[in-house]
């Protein structure tokens, strides 16, 4: 892109400084919703044709779309909204991005400086409210600070451990004029984006690795954030170590690879959970030992020494005591380690794991009369060869997706792991599809979660965004139903979703094609039709309410104490 027209040192209003700064950061599209305090910036959008803006139907939809854009590309997602309710509607989305380390820059308008602190109309202290869920935030008081602030915000969002950065700008600051100066350097004393790798730490781990008889690599989302999947594959092959991937790490190591064991955790596979429990050396790579992964932390990996490779020093030893800490960018660490790694004699160990996989595969009781949700996910996989980008909402369908859609590439699973935010599935797919116009994007939702964001179907229809929206309709809040069945003796409290709208008609109301399937034959047909349609489609798969996700490790239990499921 020719940037000279953007860089020229003209005297321009803050709103234009903001626009130019975004363009200079390479932003192609933003997601947002206008309102009084941000109107001057929206006037710039009106006048400019280099920046695409997508008008969501709710600010939460806008930020989840920016999130899907970021997760599917590794680029910073950008979201712009007005003050007060516009800003507060983002909070769930900011928390969702923060806990999953997603790089976002969020721009909020605010009331004029002179009115800040007076409880003015649509005033909200959004910087204060979001402090715990942002990587950093700025309140811009001076028009001369806008360009520098945007530059820093993008840098902070997408370096080190990534995360959302909020920039709050009072309306009058966007009106005032200043000479545009794009800062050439970034000065952030105290911000350590990249810490140097500490060779001694890696060498110590390599020594431990040589001695290990039953080593396991536990790969998390950090591998994907660091673009280190290839290095991870090389490490597994050179060393002979089997690999398990966390939920958000799925795709970071190819599932078809012979060294891939599966996903461990609450709904993990038998082999993956057993591998962790029997390992003598567990090397976590960009994984943060979330409680849904470790379950009972005191009984987690009881036979293993723990090694932990992470960019974020604060993660090391936080949940699980670590013998071999390795702090640094994962790609740098692996590149240093790779030439020194030798093949360990792990044949016996790999055979043990293979036997677990064979004796305890993932399984469900299929039916020829009714549609099983797991079968639906397998259908999606079979027909797309695992090459689609999948976004999910939150609930049982999310875990069935993790289990029955084997992911082969980084950034092909987009899901709210840390926050478990219902309503994420559809808008995140919109962002992912905009970022990847030539890739098939499928959004898998429950009938509960889709109703938290179904209004975003309008965006699909208007902009012809060809997301395939799948609704696994079990007429209940399935995940909650499962918990109530097991932990509350079938006292089903407020989980009934019958009486929800006709999803086919709902889609059609937005101008999106709607299809429904209630058995296997209809499902094959509807899905093939959906794939053939050049545009957005909603496909509802009607499934039974009573299906549970297995295996499941009950709360408080160790990973090997899983319940394996209904018997045939």
């Amino acid at each position, binding site marked *: 892109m020719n940037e000279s027209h953007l860089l020229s040192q003209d005297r321009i209003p803050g709103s234009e400084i903001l626009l130019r700064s975004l363009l200079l950061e390479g932003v192609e599209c933003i997601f947002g919703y206008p309102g009084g305090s941000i109107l001057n910036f929206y006037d710039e959008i009106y006048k400019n044709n280099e920046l695409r803006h997508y008008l969501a139907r709710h600010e939460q939809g806008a930020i989840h779309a920016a999130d899907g854009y970021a997760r599917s590309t590794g680029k910073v997602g950008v979201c712009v909204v007005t003050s007060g309710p516009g800003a507060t509607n983002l909070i769930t989305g900011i928390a969702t991005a923060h806990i999953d380390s997603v790089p976002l820059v969020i721009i909020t308008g605010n009331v004029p400086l002179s009115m800040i602190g007076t409880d003015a109309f649509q005033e909200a202290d959004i910087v204060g409210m979001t*402090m*715990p869920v942002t990587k950093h935030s700025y*309140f811009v008081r001076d028009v001369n600070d806008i360009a520098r602030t945007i530059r820093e915000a993008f840098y902070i969002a997408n370096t080190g451990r990534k995360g959302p950065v909020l920039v709050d700008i009072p309306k009058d600051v966007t009106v005032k004029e200043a000479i545009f100066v794009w800062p050439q350097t970034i000065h952030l004393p*105290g911000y350590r984006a990249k810490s140097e790798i500490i060779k001694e730490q890696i060498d110590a781990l390599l020594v431990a690795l040589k001695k290990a008889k039953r080593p396991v690599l536990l790969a998390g989302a950090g591998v994907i954030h660091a673009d280190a999947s290839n290095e991870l594959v090389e490490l597994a092959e050179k060393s002979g170590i089997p690999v398990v991937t966390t939920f958000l790490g799925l795709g970071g190591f190819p599932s078809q690879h012979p060294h891939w064991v599966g996903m461990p955790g609450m709904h993990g596979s038998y082999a993956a959970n057993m591998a962790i429990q029997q390992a003598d050396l567990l090397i976590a790579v960009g994984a943060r030992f979330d409680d849904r992964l470790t379950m009972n932390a005191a009984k987690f990996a009881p036979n293993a020494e723990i090694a932990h490779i992470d960019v*974020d*020093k*604060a993660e*090391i*030893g*936080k949940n699980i005591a670590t013998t071999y800490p390795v702090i640094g960018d994962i790609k740098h660490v692996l590149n240093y380690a790779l030439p020194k790694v030798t093949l360990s004699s792990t044949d016996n160990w790999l055979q043990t794991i293979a036997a677990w996989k064979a004796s305890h595969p993932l399984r469900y009781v299929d039916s020829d009369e009714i549609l099983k949700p797991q079968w639906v996910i397998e259908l999606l996989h079979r027909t797309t060869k695992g090459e689609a980008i999948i976004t999910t909402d939150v609930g049982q369908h999310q875990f069935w997706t993790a289990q029955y859609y084997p992911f082969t590439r980084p950034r092909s699973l987009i899901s709210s792991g840390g926050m478990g935010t219902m309503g994420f599935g559809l808008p995140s797919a919109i962002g992912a599809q905009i970022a990847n116009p030539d890739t098939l994007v499928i959004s898998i939702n429950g009938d509960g979660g889709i109703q938290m964001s179904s209004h975003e179907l309008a965006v699909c229809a208007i902009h012809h965004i060809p997301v395939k929206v799948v609704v696994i309709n079990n007429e209940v809040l399935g995940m909650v139903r499962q918990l109530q069945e097991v932990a509350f003796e079938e006292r089903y409290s407020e989980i009934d979703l019958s009486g929800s709208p006709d999803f086919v008609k709902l889609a059609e109301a937005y101008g999106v094609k709607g299809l429904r399937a209630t058995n296997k034959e209809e499902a094959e047909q509807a899905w093939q039709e959906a794939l053939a349609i050049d545009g957005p489609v909603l496909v509802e798969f009607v499934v039974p309410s009573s299906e549970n996700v297995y295996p499941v490790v009950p709360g408080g239990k160790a990973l090997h104490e899983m319940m394996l499921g209904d018997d045939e």
Partner: protein
Amino acid sequence: MKHHHTVSILVNDHPGVLQRVSALFNRRGFNIDSITVGSSEQPGMSRMIIVTLGDDRIMHQVINQVEKLIDVVNIEILSEKPLVARELALIKVEAEPVKRPEIMTLAEAFRATIADVSPDSLVVQIVGDTEKIEAMIELLHPYGILEISRTGVTAIARGRHRL
């Protein structure tokens, strides 16, 4: 094990830093006994001294989390090494003229000074570590303490070492 910790933090002089730092301590259930902030030897940067009670292991986690804040330039647990820690207290004591000499003698013994005299009260100004100040307060109690205002602890490592 729970201990008192004295933490020294060098921060950029930006709005909101105090809020960000204290929030991270609060989140992990650390009560902040005292917090002092003032300009440091480096232009544009302040030094914050926090005294807090909490579990040693979690303390190190909090330190790592605080260190991640963009506006935190440096952080160190001072109380893990020899340190100088001082606090200033202003203590307003009831003091009819007949009691004054007694109180002043007491103050002198602590190298405290009299910062204000009024017909029936005195303000004692004392500098020292926390124990010394507590001892002074204890001794002044019988005379009737009207008000106490303390700065909280500021501290620095002994020797040439710098943060």
